[in-house]
């Protein structure tokens, strides 16, 4: 699974720390999700998508082989 969090953050002009605060997780977690090292739970993924005001599928994208 890949994601567009970095792009969406740039559009919304917020830092990793600000996004982390809004979804109540640590900055490390946002960082590892962005670099595809950690797959968030459904709840967290939904929260992140809500911050960007986009449907889940526009932020998180399934890849071949998932």
């Amino acid at each position, binding site marked *: 699974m890949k994601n567009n969090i970095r792009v969406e953050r740039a559009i919304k002009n917020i830092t990793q720390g600000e996004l982390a605060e809004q979804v109540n*997780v640590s900055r490390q977690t946002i960082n*590892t999700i962005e670099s595809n090292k950690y797959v968030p739970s459904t709840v967290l993924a939904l929260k992140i998508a809500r911050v960007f005001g986009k449907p889940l599928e526009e932020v998180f994208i399934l890849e071949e082989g998932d």
Partner: protein
Amino acid sequence: MKSKFLFPYWCRYLGWALVIAHVPMSIIGRANGMINPLDNPLANQALFTGEHLFFICTTLVMAVGLFIVAFSREKVEDEQIWQVRLDSLRWAIFVNYLILLASLIFIYDIAHILEINLWVPLFFFIIRFRWVMFRLNHSLSKEG
């Protein structure tokens, strides 16, 4: 994220204080001729004798300290930290059982096997957990 069954963040410092405190207590006790009951199979079996208290003040204080350190909250708890914690716990149990089984096969000294068993899982858990957290923080500082 709700985190049940974890001590508050400040307990980590209390835990380390207990772990550190057991060292001078152990040195002072040994200097005064105290022997850990586990090292002395002929020890008096009565409760709250000098040696029994020495055992409580050293080995048990250390084990309780490690326990508190291992199970105190991080500043920010989230699902990834839970996963790291769970993963570290699995590794700790793996390592502990490898050591336990190996020592049961090769060593007949049950008392010391118990003593090793008292701290190996906690110690290994703390090291592994802190190492992964350190690496996460490190990758964060590299990103800037």
